[in-house]
């Protein structure tokens, strides 16, 4: 059958290879989701306050461009937590514990910052590494339980969000060196623990974003080029086949969760060790029993970036961008929460963007004849099978 059609196939081959090469379909579906999310966001804004909807919407979409430094600064922690969620997801693990790992990373970084007396040239580096180790510890536990006792990582990691957060709050409040009780926050960190700034005026953007992007690229290489990445993806795509092929599933589960935890922990360290624009001050942590939102934003980032490290770089920057724009929308009388609505809608659409993609493709197919017939049909099929596979997995999980 295939040989017969090879002549017809030839010209499609090129198009197909482009699509494969850059994850074209997930890219277009992300764009689609963003587009639809913005439209719905605009409608929401229109409903809330019609008179300034246009101005507010302009702020949301373009406002970030005026504050590029801040966009990158706020993108740093969610890029890291996004990588933490996406990386684990490649193995089929749903790491909901990014918040706890992030908070732990923050605490470890703070601890080194306040308690250890180190040469100022390496102090911040050690603090960042300590943050990574803190996150790793918090990733290790759910991974260990999953691998050895087959406890669902979703449950463990949710609980570890709370355990981590309360522990950190408790430790910080108990430490007079770190805590200023009448201000319910940590003291200002010494300047030598703060990550070097990139020197963009009016912004706290620092070396963290560059490190984060480098880490994403390293993860990409690990996933694509190494035997570990090969095993990890195989396990995520088909657990049974990876077992059949003799891969060490348990070891890989633990390793993946430790790496994911480390990534979140780095995110926490990057956030708390960021330099402050005002001399003599620093970022602070407030032990007020709230789970770090950046962990959950990481899930949104990972979803929008299709769990692909490079995709996550862009989705983190994008989400940070409209968040910045959202705060600007308050200038024309909107609550900044409006932007959370828009982000939520975008994530919502990205969850079934693949289907939307197909629907649009079918629309074009009908209008412009049979040109793209085969490709769209292929997508329909693969989407269907993806959905089917996903639901199968769910059923199996449920069992």
């Amino acid at each position, binding site marked *: 059958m295939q040989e017969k059609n090879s002549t017809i*196939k030839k010209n499609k081959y090129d198009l197909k290879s482009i699509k494969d090469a850059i994850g074209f379909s997930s890219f277009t579906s992300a764009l689609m989701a963003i587009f639809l999310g913005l439209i719905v966001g605009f409608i929401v804004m229109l409903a809330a306050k019609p008179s300034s909807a246009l101005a507010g919407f302009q702020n949301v979409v373009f406002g970030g461009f005026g504050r590029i430094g801040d966009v990158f600064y706020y993108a740093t922690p969610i890029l890291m937590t996004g990588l933490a969620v996406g990386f684990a997801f490649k193995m089929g693990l749903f790491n909901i514990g990014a918040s706890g790992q992030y908070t732990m990373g923050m605490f470890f970084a703070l601890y080194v910052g306040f308690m250890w007396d180190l040469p100022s040239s390496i102090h911040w580096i050690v603090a960042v590494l300590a943050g990574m180790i803190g996150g790793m510890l918090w990733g290790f536990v759910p991974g260990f339980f999953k691998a050895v006792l087959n406890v669902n990582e979703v449950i463990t990691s949710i609980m570890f969000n709370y355990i981590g957060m309360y522990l950190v709050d408790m430790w910080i409040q108990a430490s007079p060196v770190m805590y200023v009780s009448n201000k319910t926050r940590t003291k200002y960190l010494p300047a030598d623990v703060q990550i070097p700034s990139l020197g963009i005026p009016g912004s706290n953007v620092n070396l963290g974003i560059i490190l984060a992007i480098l880490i994403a690229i390293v993860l990409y290489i690990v996933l694509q*080029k190494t035997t570990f990445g090969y095993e990890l*993806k195989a396990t995520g*795509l088909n657990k049974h086949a990876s077992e*059949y092929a*003799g891969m060490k599933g348990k070891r890989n589960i633990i390793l993946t969760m430790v790496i994911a935890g480390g990534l979140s922990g780095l995110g926490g360290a990057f956030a708390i060790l960021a330099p402050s624009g005002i001399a003599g001050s620093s970022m602070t942590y407030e032990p007020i029993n709230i789970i770090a939102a950046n962990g959950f934003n990481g899930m949104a980032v990972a979803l929008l970036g299709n769990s692909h490290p490079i995709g996550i770089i862009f989705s983190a920057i994008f989400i940070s961008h409209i968040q910045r724009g959202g705060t600007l929308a308050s200038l024309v009388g909107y609550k900044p929460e409006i932007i959370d609505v828009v982000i939520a809608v975008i994530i919502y659409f990205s969850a079934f963007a693949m289907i939307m993609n197909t629907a649009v493709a079918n629309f074009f197919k009908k209008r412009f004849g049979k040109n793209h017939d085969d*490709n769209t*049909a*292929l997508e329909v099929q693969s989407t269907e099978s993806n959905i089917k596979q996903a639901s199968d997995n769910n059923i199996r999980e449920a069992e």
Partner: protein
Amino acid sequence: MEKYIIEMINITKKFPGIIANDNITLRLKKGEIHALLGENGAGKSTLMSVLFGLYQPDGGEIRKNGKVVKINNPNDANDLGIGMVHQHFKLVEIFTVLENIILGVEPNKMGFLQRKVAREKVIELSEKYGLRVDPDALIEDISVGMQQRVEILKMLYRDNEILIFDEPTAVLTPQEIKELLQIMKGFAKEGKSILFITHKLNEIMEVADRCTVLRKGKCIGTVDVKDTTKEELSRMMVGRDISFSVDKKEPKVGDVVLSVRNLSVASKLHKNKDAVKNVSFDVRAGEIVCLAGIEGNGQTEFVYALTGLDKPKSGSITLCGKDITKASIRDRSIAGMSHIPEDRHKHGLVLDYKLEENLVLQRYWQPEFQKAGFIKFDAVREYAEKLIDKFDIRSSQGPVTMTRSMSGGNQQKAIIARETDKEHKLLVAVQPTRGLDVGAIEYVHKQLVAIRDSGKAVLLVSLELDEVMDVSDRILVMYEGEIVGELDPKTTTVEELGLYMSGAKRDTVKEINDAGKK
């Protein structure tokens, strides 16, 4: 003009790169058994899915009693009286037989289930057609044959008059097959019309009135079965002559490669019960030993324990003199075990990996394919191309084809290529021809014999009687987790094998051990 109950006229259905059904016309007469014959990927399932409302055709029309109908989903099909027994049964395991039969059409009064009404109707139907079932048994407890009867009763309960059977005999014993064919004849006599999808020519010759043959999505023709022969049908199906028997030389049996002693495996379904009970046997180099039996008699559990996917409860496994009872899967593989798994989608392949990535699934960690943890993609590509060439694995884009998009036969070829090209002394092949067409089956059998002739040991686990009889050098029959007989395919008959498989006949363990020593 003859009266047709269902007509599918000029049906065309396209998929990416493939026209699954190309202008196919199928006419079903009232009260006939109409066989639909074709290789895998010939378009039989697609055509039936169109009739059952699972796919919409790109062209053509369906008529019932001469009137054009549109079937948008299985409910429409059901309303038109079309019922289907799927190859993989669609039953709720933890429901009773009765509950499964009435599922979706429960008789009720103001929302309250009228179990009694349902039960009476089911019992009446089951007596009328000789479909013995226990209405209160749970599906998970009953045999595959009885599950199939439940599926048939489901169709009858819905008063379907057009019955589609999708490869119904694949899971049955010879005796059960005979029974089923009788039941089908009974239906036809009643005036019900039957579409019978199968690869098995013998069954077509036995029951079918007419036969439509598909090849590569095209309709080759419809013939009256009484005017044709098996050879002609197979030529129509494959497009060339096929040898039905496997050519093989006398085995040159060498040393013991695999030795299993007193192996027991706990059952997953039933607590306190063993799925495999005290199994002992040897497989020597240069012979094909076949583990025969009806599905669900402990073969799967045995293979899991043998290959390391599951732990045995007791007993020992020795491969080439090395105890591997507790070895990891990777260590077994290194020790020389290759495994063609029963379920190629679950275990055998990562479907969303490229073909080349699947071809190195057992070897990616070897120095040939990796250096310091980095995969040598050039070496992988080169190796994949070599295997694709050597084993004639066909796909649309060669090494970079997504495995999911390949046909079942070529997926199986990929697994066989991977498992047999790797260093091995023992090949465990579990239902290697499941779901494959005649041409591919011939290929797989040739490969198995070639592996045997190269001095390796082969343990074949099979449900197909023809395969058991043709390919193997020695047959071990497994029934309810025990080995109940050792047979020589040259001296035994299919009927005798069937008696062992259904548990009607068995030798004592002592006799078997004596036979093994000879």
